[in-house]
């Protein structure tokens, strides 16, 4: 049921108010175990979650949080005007499908059974490929990739030679990233001009940080033997030249500072060695980007985008906290990696 954008935006504002706030998130991280975490979560808008009979509790919880997030995306897609709805569906479904294809390829590479591979997928219906099961049933990585022929992912087939040459799946994963970025930039063109900036900001920034992290890995001696053009098919504010500097420089701090304050802030945990905090910084950057976008235009697409970004951050938080509680990780350690979309 498609509704008027202003009405959807007003409803989205109300949905934002329903997200977990700082106090609730903190309370969840302070749970003594998974059961208490679930009990406390039941007091929020999530309600009672059942994971009875789950083989691995954190993985079952992750699946539930993904499903909840996808429900939110679908509800929004359902309500928003056609063009925005189509873009949002492409943005999220393509992202999760790319992730699923990577997991299928990894599964085939490591010889996992079809059932195991299917269990590891994000719970969505196939979006641009006919069937995940068919891909997971393939006898080899080559066969699975060749089955992408005729889909928008067919570009990945051309990277099979590199896969065979290096006996590694990174060329296939990078090709999938490239397909995703291209498709998003194509899809964003359907949005009105004023709404595109926020999407470009998020996608380009994320791609830049991911490229930087891949370059950091090369720096650590993980020489893949590939040239930089192959390794970074799409670059934005962090150019290929800068990425080369990241790999070769002795003074990394100088290179990071030359990338500008916004990047330097997110990448600063590299000095302390806690690289996971870079992803937390990236989430925070996304949060700040959509929040400022929402402030500029509180009655347009930016609000919907902000809600979905906040929801995804919340999903990531809950997945992390759920895993942490199953492992007995302290609240203090968990809160380091949590970005809270809604202040108290």
């Amino acid at each position, binding site marked *: 049921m498609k509704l008027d954008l202003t009405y959807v935006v007003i409803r989205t504002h109300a949905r934002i108010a329903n997200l977990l706030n700082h106090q609730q998130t903190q309370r969840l991280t302070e749970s003594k175990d998974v059961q208490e975490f679930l009990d406390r979560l039941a007091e929020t808008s999530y309600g009672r979650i059942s994971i009875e009979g789950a083989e*691995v509790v*954190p*993985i079952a919880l*992750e*699946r539930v949080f993904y499903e909840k997030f996808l429900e939110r995306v679908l509800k929004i897609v359902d309500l928003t005007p056609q063009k925005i709805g189509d873009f949002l569906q492409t943005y999220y479904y393509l992202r999760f499908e790319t*992730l699923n294809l*990577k*997991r299928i390829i*990894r*599964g085939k*590479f*490591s010889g*996992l059974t079809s059932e195991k591979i299917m269990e*590891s997928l994000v719970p969505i219906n196939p979006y641009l490929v006919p069937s995940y099961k068919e891909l997971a049933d393939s006898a080899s990585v080559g066969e699975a990739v060749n089955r992408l022929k005729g889909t928008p992912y067919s570009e990945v087939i051309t990277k099979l030679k590199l896969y065979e040459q*290096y006996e*590694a*799946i*990174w060329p296939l*994963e990078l090709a999938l990233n490239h397909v995703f970025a291209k498709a998003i930039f194509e899809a964003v063109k359907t949005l009105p001009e004023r709404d595109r900036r926020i999407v470009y900001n998020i996608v380009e920034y994320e791609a830049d940080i991911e490229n930087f*992290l*891949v370059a*950091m*890995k090369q720096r*650590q*001696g*993980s020489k*893949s033997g590939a040239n930089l053009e192959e390794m970074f098919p799409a670059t934005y504010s962090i150019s290929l030249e800068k990425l080369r500097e990241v790999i070769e420089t002795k003074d990394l701090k100088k290179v990071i500072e030359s990338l500008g304050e916004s990047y330097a802030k997110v990448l600063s945990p590299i000095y302390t*060695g*806690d*690289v*996971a*905090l*870079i*992803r*937390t910084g990236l989430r925070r950057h996304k949060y700040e980007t959509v929040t400022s976008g929402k402030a500029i235009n509180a009655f347009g697409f930016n609000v919907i985008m902000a809600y979905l970004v906040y929801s995804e951050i919340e999903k*990531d938080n809950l*997945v*992390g*906290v759920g*895993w*942490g509680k199953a*492992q007995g*990780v302290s609240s203090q*350690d*968990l809160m380091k*990696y949590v970005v809270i979309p809604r202040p108290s």
Partner: protein
Amino acid sequence: MTLSQMSGVRPTKGYLMEMKRRIGFIERGCEFLKLKRDHLAKELSASLDILKGRRKLLLNNLKEAYDALTAAYISLGPTEVDSQASSVKSALQLEVLPRSVMGVRYPYVKIISKPQITTDLDITLARAAEKIYEILEELVQLAEYEARAERIADELGKTNRKVNALENTVIPNYKQVIKFIGSKLDEESLEELVRMKRIGGALASRRK
């Protein structure tokens, strides 16, 4: 040695000489065992010092690795971590070979191949994997030192028991036997002397 145990002892000069030869051999063996015991004690003490140092280091590194792994799981989610981890094909391969110190055999672990952990992994997970791999190496070495210390301690205990048994039981028993045979032989020779004297006295009185 009790009187009943002495009953099997033949109080002859030949037996006495055999006993003296044996006790000489046992005392030399006991000296060697004492030397072995001292050397093993020295080796054990050195191994324990190394173990203590390595354990402390391992605990620190274990904390760092656990933190890195926790960060990777929180950052990527458990399914993604499992999926990426499954793409690491090459495993850690070890070979266990025997080594020996003072005749005490202990296992020596040789690393044949290391897993290639960074190519396809996310940097967060690659960092955690590197730290865990470092710990695995340390754990392998620690296990080697623990096995070495354990076996040396075992052998030290056995050697110590042998030395104690020789010093406190076997050698004193032999000495007692030697003393017993010696006194028996002395007694016999005294009796013989008295008998000879009596026979001599009897023969002299008959001649008169």
